């Protein structure tokens, strides 16, 4: 029987970690992810997990300890936000290139500066090319579910890549919601034991991890890494289907909300997608064929699924809670427009909105404005402004 509980996003993720019972958790506190290692350390202290908790002196050390532990043959996890993630930067690339299936909660927060502790996606978007799989979550339930699925996805033999589970700081991490937990033994059975093919503590088969890899070899390893990310697509699908069987909750590469006949649509990551669903419902009552696409998987990027779900729309607004400072749109926008072009979908008028930076509130009225702009684009048959900023004082 599933367990109903009222948990914050951070509590939900810490609870998932308790049920996963990893061998090692190495973490350093940083707002708004601090509660995850804090809750988890109480689980360690009261003996409800067998985990070795490493209280490191920085996030660089947190990720380094996870790399060392995972290479040794352990299941390692951590959590961080914003500048903490930035301090992990070089080690993120090492974790991915060494094919170490570490799972991390990234509680999204603006990357300073100027100094700010509130939610946007500048932290995880900056790490989008580090070789980590990235899953995004709208609410506490999705954060809990994705954390559990992340273990299976990461550790699959055809993947062996680290996974970052991203959800919105404060909005999700600190809000209480009623969610459905699975029983401990169900989670334990679902994730199974971590059995790497080769690991440092295997005395019978000694190996060296992380050697110098110069011109004659490096490229082959990066090509292999890229293939693992391609393989991840099939694995994410399989693991999500298996998860649906035990939980009743279905996950794909993206959630298509009222998209069947949508003429105007927004593409939004994480919690703001919830606000947009409310707006879509209101617009539908007024006869406007509005829809919403909420990507769950950003790495690997679901090019086919995205092109397929958007191809029948007349106008689409891609919303980025991070700017790329490339004068050509945010990261989600450039990925989607590139994907549409490659898939030959050239008749969808697509615009970009940068929104909610540094925790700026995004309310129903803001989202309504976006859909209003889209209906104007459709009626006028042209785009006045491709790159837009939503909710900034002009």
């Amino acid at each position: 029987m599933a367990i109903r509980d009222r948990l914050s996003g951070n509590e939900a993720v810490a609870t998932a970690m308790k049920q996963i019972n990893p061998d090692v958790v190495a973490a350093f506190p940083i707002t708004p992810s601090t509660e995850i290692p804090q809750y988890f350390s109480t689980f360690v202290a009261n003996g409800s997990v067998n985990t070795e908790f490493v209280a490191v002196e920085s996030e660089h050390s947190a990720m380094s300890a996870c790399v060392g532990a995972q290479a040794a043959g352990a299941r390692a996890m951590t959590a961080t936000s914003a500048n903490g993630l930035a301090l992990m930067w070089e080690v993120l690339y090492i974790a991915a290139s060494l094919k170490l299936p570490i799972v991390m909660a990234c509680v999204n927060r603006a990357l300073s500066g100027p100094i700010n502790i509130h939610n946007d996606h500048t932290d995880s978007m900056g790490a989008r090319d580090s070789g980590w799989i990235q899953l995004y979550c709208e609410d506490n339930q999705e954060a809990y579910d994705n954390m559990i699925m992340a273990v299976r996805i990461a550790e699959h033999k055809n993947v062996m890549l680290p996974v970052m589970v991203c959800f919105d700081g404060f909005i999700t991490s600190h809000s209480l919601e009623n969610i459905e937990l699975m029983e401990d033994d169900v989670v334990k059975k679902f994730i199974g034991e971590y059995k790497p093919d080769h690991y440092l503590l295997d005395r019978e088969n000694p190996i060296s991890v992380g050697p110098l890899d110069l011109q004659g070899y490096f490229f082959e390893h990066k090509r292999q890494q890229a293939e693992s990310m391609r393989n991840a697509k099939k694995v994410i699908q399989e693991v999500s289907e298996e998860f649906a069987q035990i939980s009743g909750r279905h996950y794909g590469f993206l959630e298509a909300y009222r998209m069947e006949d949508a003429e105007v649509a927004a593409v939004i990551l994480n919690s703001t997608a919830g606000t947009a669903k409310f707006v879509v419902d209101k617009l539908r009552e007024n006869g406007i064929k509005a829809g919403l696409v909420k990507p769950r998987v950003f790495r690997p990027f679901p090019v086919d699924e995205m092109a397929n779900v958007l191809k029948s729309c007349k106008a689409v607004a891609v919303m980025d809670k991070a700017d790329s400072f490339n004068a050509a749109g945010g990261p989600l926008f450039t990925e989607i427009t590139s994907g549409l072009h490659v898939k030959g979908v050239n008749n969808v008028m697509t615009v970009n909105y940068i929104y909610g930076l540094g925790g700026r509130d995004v309310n129903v009225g803001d989202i309504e404005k976006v859909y209003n702009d889209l209906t104007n684009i459709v009626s006028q048959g042209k785009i006045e402004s491709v790159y837009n900023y939503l909710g900034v004082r002009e």
Partner: protein
Amino acid sequence: MSNCKHNKIVSSDTTWKETTEGGTICSPGNATDFPTGDWRSMKPIWLQEKCKQCLLCYPVCPDTAILVNEEGKRVDFNYDHCKGCGVCYKVCPFEAIDFVEEGK
């Protein structure tokens, strides 16, 4: 699937499908398969007529460039693995090792 098998040697011909994950070395002690002598800028020369076979040079070589034969005597340098660090030259009490610029 893992390509990391015991005794597997990754060479400059190994394809991306066959190479080991992340460059993991699954065959300990394989340095002999990778000539590194071309890193050298200084080169030790063994002067056999001065050598007393005291074997002080043999244990200080950080690589496998000084080998001892079945009779317990050192033989000429293995230049495939000598990086020209000069430790053997410094340690030799009989000036039986010269140390010259590579290419001269």
